[in-house]
């Protein structure tokens, strides 16, 4: 990516409108940022003209590269381009609000099922599915990173180091993650001619 979103000429719009549009996006967009790309384009590019298609793509790519949840970061970037820091905060708060409210109500009304009951059995198999999902997500991230073969080996070594250090030696996860991150930044090289980081593909 060579461009960053243009934030020089935000159109005038009220914070209420901004909040309402992002609330709507948060309530209707399923499957994460990339899955909601068409809906985002329809709402922000075609109907409102708040950003261009190119800006949308640039913001989505940038959002995937900064240390924050992608979809939220995207909302924050659009909000910032339109109304500065306040716009950023309002856009991403209203974006997460519908989903967060549903989660909150769901955890309040559901409880931990006893083993042998329908709820208990479903929760157990869902937990198994999530363990598999986490492993699958880890494998997918490592598989899809575009780095040199030697760097891939180093990367796999770092990948294995984290769980071993934490579970076998009782090391702090945070400290291990920071050390391996710095070590990896020093040792891992991109593919020749690939000027861009090609880390994880969108999986949100």
């Amino acid at each position: 990516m060579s461009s960053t979103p243009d934030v020089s000429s935000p159109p005038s719009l009220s914070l209420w409108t901004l909040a309402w549009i992002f609330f709507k996006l948060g309530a209707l967009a399923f499957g994460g940022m990339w899955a909601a790309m068409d809906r985002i384009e329809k709402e922000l590019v075609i109907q409102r003209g708040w950003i261009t298609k190119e800006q949308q793509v640039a913001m989505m790519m940038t959002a995937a590269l900064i240390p924050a949840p992608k979809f939220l970061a995207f909302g924050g970037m659009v909000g910032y381009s339109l109304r500065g820091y306040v716009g950023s905060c309002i856009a991403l708060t209203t974006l997460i609000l519908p989903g967060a409210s549903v989660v909150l109500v769901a955890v309040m009304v559901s409880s931990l099922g006893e083993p042998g009951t329908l709820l208990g059995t479903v929760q157990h198999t869902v937990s198994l599915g999530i363990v598999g999902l986490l492993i699958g997500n880890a494998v997918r991230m490592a598989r899809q990173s575009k780095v040199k073969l030697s760097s891939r080996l180093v990367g796999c070594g770092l990948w294995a180091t984290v769980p071993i250090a934490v579970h076998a030696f009782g090391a702090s996860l945070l400290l291990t993650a920071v050390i391996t991150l710095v070590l990896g930044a020093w040792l891992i090289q991109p593919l020749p001619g690939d000027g861009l980081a090609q880390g994880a593909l969108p999986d949100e």
Partner: protein
Amino acid sequence: MNESASVSALDVMGVIMMSTLFSLGGGNGQIALIQDYWVGPGLLEPALFAWAYAIGNFVPGPKVSFVTGIGYYMAGIPGAIAALAGIVIPTTIGASIASHWYLKFQRVINHMTLSATFVIAGMMTTAAYGLARPMEIAWGEYIIVVVAAVAFAWKGLDAMYIIGGSGLLGAVIWMI
């Protein structure tokens, strides 16, 4: 349902804020940190953690909204609000900085992302092991784990279908 009285809303916000930083490169590093801080030490039931995460995959909007459920389990309604704040504050800062100074930091971010891909993969493996360890998984049940992992890693199946399928399988097993 407040599973722990020893965690304050402020603690919740702190851990969620810190965990947000490990979303670099599109990874779900925050899951690993939550697991490490609360599930591992026994402050949060693994099944509740998984339950909140599962629900988060079925709701609209950003999937990270599951942290609201985690916040609620840890410190009630104030915990849920604190979790939301823990996501919103660093993301606002990050998104604003990215909008403003992205070009300046582009090379550094790109390079860190290469490393983060593997480190977050390690963090997710750590979380998976930490979640599975107290579950007393029967040998036959590992098939569900393997199928879910393969379906996601190689077949690209959406998490929503994997979690939904796992739940459906649980219902079928219960009926049998």
